[in-house]
């Protein structure tokens, strides 16, 4: 092998920051920087997708939970008509909530893989490569989104079997894909942040359990916010999952309409994801220390 000529040293010299989402060398040339950032992000997604393809058992066992919720909880509650859904059947009301829930569950425990990879030494190798920390974090988040899409497929099949009135408009389906990816990125990055802070598997599992239930129940996933006591309504309005469910409900169900509300839902989730990725990128190098 021959000695390599150093690549673009003039760019390198401008770099003085370690932890930013984009390094300063990249701020100097924003378009190339964004292209490089996206390419690195997709490399991380590619790697995670290859892992799923080598061992898809996780994806398959994860299908059990939404199936149980829809088949048992959904079938029972749709008969007792206890929950005011505004005219639609409870199963219809609930199906988007269950999709949001299964994406949440997949994403919120993805941080444990980071602790595992830290213990192995894999993370150290990524952190010594010239990859923006933000790309490593966002890549992990989007990879959780790919797992979330597998859940969406399962929920759609179940919904079809149960006779839920779905919206099959291709644009609406595309919207569901985007919302699932965005929701998974939010919660996977949140999970990554927790992993960076607690650093051990045992503590992470404890905290993961403590957070998942409130996130799920203090949202509109399986009942409308309107029937909650005021204090819980406040929490639900601050919960990103609520916006994910709102968005999914208007995109997944037949008769759902694209309203300005959908734009608000999307914007809330996008801003949450961006803020979390920035925080994650700052904390990620701490895992290896």
């Amino acid at each position: 092998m021959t000695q390599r000529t150093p690549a673009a040293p003039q760019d390198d010299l401008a770099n003085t920051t370690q932890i930013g989402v984009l390094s300063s060398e990249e701020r100097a040339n924003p378009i190339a920087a964004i292209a490089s950032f996206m390419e690195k992000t997709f490399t991380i997604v590619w790697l995670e997708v290859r892992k799923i393809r080598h061992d898809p058992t996780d994806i398959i066992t994860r299908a059990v939970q939404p199936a149980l919720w829809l088949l048992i909880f959904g079938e029972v509650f749709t008969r007792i008509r206890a929950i005011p859904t505004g005219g639609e059947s409870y199963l219809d009301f609930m199906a988007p909530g269950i999709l949001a829930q299964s994406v949440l569950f997949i994403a919120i425990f993805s941080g444990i893989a980071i602790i595992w990879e830290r213990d192995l030494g894999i993370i150290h190798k990524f952190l010594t490569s010239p990859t923006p920390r933000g790309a490593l974090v966002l890549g992990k988040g989007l990879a959780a989104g790919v797992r979330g899409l597998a859940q969406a497929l399962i929920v759609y099949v179940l919904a079809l079997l149960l006779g839920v009135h779905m919206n099959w408009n291709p644009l609406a389906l595309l919207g569901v894909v985007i919302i699932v990816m965005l929701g998974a990125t939010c919660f996977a990055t949140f999970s990554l942040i927790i992993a960076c802070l607690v650093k051990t598997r045992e503590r992470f599992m404890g905290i993961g359990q403590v957070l998942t239930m409130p996130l799920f129940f203090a949202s509109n996933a399986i009942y409308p916010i309107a029937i909650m006591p005021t204090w819980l309504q406040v929490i639900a309005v601050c919960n990103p999952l609520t916006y994910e469910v709102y968005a999914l409900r208007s995109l997944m169900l037949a008769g759902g309409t694209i309203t300005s509300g959908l734009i608000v839902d999307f914007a809330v989730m996008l801003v949450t994801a961006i803020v979390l990725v920035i925080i994650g990128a700052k904390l990620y190098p701490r895992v290896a220390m």
Partner: protein
Amino acid sequence: MQKQPIVEVRDLVKLFGEHAVVDHVSFAVEPGEVFGLLGPNGAGKSTTIKILTTLLPPTSGYAAVVGFDVTKQPMPVRRRIGYVPQALSADGNLTGYENLLVFARLYDLPREERVPKAHEALKFMGLQDAADKLVRNYSGGMIRRLEVAQAMLHQPEVLFLDEPTVGLDPVARKAVWEHLEQLRKQSGMTIFLTTHYMEEADSLCDRVAIMHLGKIMAIGSPVELKASIGGDETTLDDVFTHYTGNMLESGGSYRDTAHTRRTARRLG
């Protein structure tokens, strides 16, 4: 004119709480050298290598790799180094080839070079037949060679190896050494390694620094170090014992021990 050192460390300090893990360390590595940092567990070797590879910020002092300050200019440093961590760093759920391709992309290898370079690196490390096997089915020695292949893919100017042969059986260890030797001969790459195997240091390194309790106790070529304490048939073991007071077993926390054992088991 004197050659610019490729790795330069001046008065480096790393405190964990009150405890100085790296305690006012200074040394320089010349281009093309194989430099060994020798010491018992807990001597500060891994911490030093983590600072040099931009993973850990030093508390004070100066460290530069290929002329770039590791704290102020980490990106250019990262582009020019390869790193094989002590723990297992290849992903067991990917094939050997996929492991390489990921890093070919992350290190910005030109698109058309990625696939040929990945195959070339696999071949160089004697892994071409295992390229499409999942790494979790590799032997310990194969994983280590794959990790070296990952780290040399972008032809770094300095290759950092943290305890490259820990937990390997003698045959696998020898294979790793031979590959490193060959790599150095062919590429002229500077190799910086840490080890606590005296034999490894003696056979691989041009120069070694003996580190103990965060300080550099002695530095020089194996021959010089042996001469420095005199006596006939002095081995590097004797040198080591002389400078560290037979503390080969000292140091290393519960976590370090668990970590080393786990790594050893997985590699074994």
